[in-house]
């Protein structure tokens, strides 16, 4: 030890080594580049290049081929015979199903082929509608697509396929609302509340199955891709209400009520029941944006220098409070949930 006294060992034993820690020591010239490299290699030892690159090549390769096929159809549409259109899609569809069966759904390759097949079902339906000029509204295409691939989505246990399915279903709902003309002007914004509800149901299912131990749903991003669209959907009627409250229709008011309820539920659930600081942060951020819209309407649009100064100051105060609140919540969550 050369007479050097070691510091209290306990704190060092309870601190986990991280990349930031190593980078910081290197930045302060306390360790050499060799020591930094050694530490990073110890922290990230399992670089499984072959396995990782194989997955990357499969994913990007299939994505590019599928995109190329879609470009091909877009270009040659008028020149292709009906027989060619159908046979080429059906052969590819069959090939992707066969490949998925061959690799099996336990492997990523099998799942990617099933995802490709699900997309090709949509291409097939689009071609079918174009060739036979069914005259059906385009929401029908998305509805059929969504229903036909639902069994595949369920058996795949593959999050990207679920994301695609949810996107198709959301588009279907929006198109249905616009094309059936089943809305009148005052009810125009009801679709946003319906969409929030629809995605909310899947968020509840996601949380339920996640608690039940379904591993592939446990990644935080699967929660985020539902929470963020829900907050965006309910922001639109809220914005409309703030900007022009006198013209607010019942669908706008319902949207605003939804907004209040959803923000409250998200805060309570992700603060106390299923603690997740990212979800709380996004909910608080959404509240900040709503309050900012109020400031914008009531202050910024006055269009004078004092209004701008006031708007800037209020924004600073608002976001500082949000940061303060989040810091406190983070501390409390760490104490209670580790």
């Amino acid at each position, binding site marked *: 030890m050369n007479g050097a006294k070691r510091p209290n060992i306990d704190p060092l034993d309870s601190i986990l080594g991280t990349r930031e820690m190593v980078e910081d020591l290197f930045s302060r010239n306390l360790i050499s580049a060799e020591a930094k490299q050694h530490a990073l290699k110890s922290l990230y030892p399992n670089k499984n290049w072959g396995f990782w690159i194989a997955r990357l090549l499969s994913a990007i390769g299939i994505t*590019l081929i599928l995109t190329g096929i879609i470009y091909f159809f877009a270009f040659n549409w008028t020149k292709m015979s009906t027989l060619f259109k159908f046979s080429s899609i059906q052969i590819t569809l069959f090939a992707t199903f066969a490949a998925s069966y061959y690799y099996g759904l336990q492997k990523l390759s099998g799942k990617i082929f099933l995802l490709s097949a699900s997309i090709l079902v949509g291409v097939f339906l689009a071609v079918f509608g174009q060739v036979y000029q069914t005259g059906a509204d385009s929401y029908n295409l998305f509805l059929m697509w969504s229903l036909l691939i639902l069994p595949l989505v369920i058996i795949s246990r593959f999050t990207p396929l679920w994301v695609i399915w949810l996107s198709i279903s959301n588009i279907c709902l929006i198109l249905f609302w616009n094309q059936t003309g089943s809305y009148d002007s005052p009810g125009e914004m009801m679709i946003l509340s319906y969409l929030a509800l629809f995605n909310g149901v899947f968020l509840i299912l996601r949380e339920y199955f996640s608690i039940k131990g379904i591993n592939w749903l446990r990644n935080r991003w699967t929660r985020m891709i539902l929470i963020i669209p829900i907050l965006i959907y309910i922001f639109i009627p809220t914005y409309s209400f703030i900007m022009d409250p006198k013209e607010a229709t019942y669908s706008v008011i319902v949207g605003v009520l939804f907004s209040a309820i959803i923000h409250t539920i998200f805060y309570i659930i992700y603060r106390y029941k299923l603690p997740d600081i990212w979800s709380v942060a996004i909910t608080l951020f959404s509240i900040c944006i709503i309050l900012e819209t109020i400031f914008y309407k009531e202050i910024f649009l006055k269009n004078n220098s004092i209004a701008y100064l006031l708007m800037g100051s209020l924004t600073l105060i608002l976001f500082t409070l949000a940061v303060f609140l989040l810091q406190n919540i983070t501390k409390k969550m760490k104490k209670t949930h580790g």
Partner: protein
Amino acid sequence: MDNSIKKITAKELLDSWINLGLVPQSEYTHLGNTIISQQQEKTLPLYLRMLISIGALISSLSFISFLYISKIVYLPSEKLLCGIILIGLALILRILSKEASTTIKHSIFIQTSFCSMIVGKIVFIIGFATAIGVPITQLESKPWEVTLGLLLITAITYNIYPLFIDRFLSTLSLFLLIYISISGEFYFETYKKTALHLFYFIQIIIAATLLLNKRIKSAYIPLAYAIVCSLCITTILLEPTAKVLNWNNYNTIFINAILTFSLIALIYWAAKDAQKLKSQPIIFASLSALLLGIISADGLIFSLCLMILGYGKQDRPLLLIGAVFIPIFIFFYYYNLDIKLITKSVILIGSGLILLVARGYLNIKKLDREA
């Protein structure tokens, strides 16, 4: 990526350095104390940094509007002085935030500091450009003067104001302004294409140096990310710029060649790290990269480069940028490139097939197994 992270305590790390002779034993105490104090510093998690950044950006826009409308600072010298004062204030607030005893004080100081820095820099840049003779109404048409102002203030503040988001945004803006300045330049019309290609090449060189050199300090990570983002934008923008500037028969051979060479270089860099990959697979991978370079689009090769680099460095943001860039590039590729859809289709399918053949090769050689 998380699966490959090993949990090692700070003590274990220190011991391994001492045992291997990488750190002298006499430094043990100092290093240990530094790590402990490091933990006590208020390092902000990503969601808080994002919230602070958005709040500061919105409020600084309001303050800029206030300064512009109120005409409190009117003369160029006043703007320069005001900019310097605000930047100074930002530095003081940043120091105060480190010493803040309570969370609320820390939040106030850090938020106000960043806001003050943004406003200060913008006012300084406008003051600088107007001081060298550009009327405030013509700033848009004189991007070089604005670029010079930004370069000056970024160079001064980069090392003394260690906020990641400020470093990132300032340097990203700088690189984008250089791109805009070159493509809007009238004096060297003939050399514009060469200048843009040279600019692209320089960015690649700087990015490679910052991301691959083991001796680069962590302070330059924001600069590295800024260049990567600038390269993403430049890769997408080069085609439309060529159209706007009426460059007939513009092709991206030069960019493609740079990126293909980068991809091959990265394969060799990765191979150093992987014991499994011996010479034959590396030659095969290099040939695949070459073939990809010949037939594929530059954005796809760039994306592959980013993901390989991200995985090799276990750098999650780089991996994410690479993955997100693929669909964005494909979207722009559909609309931008002035070639027939059938050619684009062949390029995409061909690129996909090359990747799948390479994947098949890994399978044959049994290199695709999980360890």
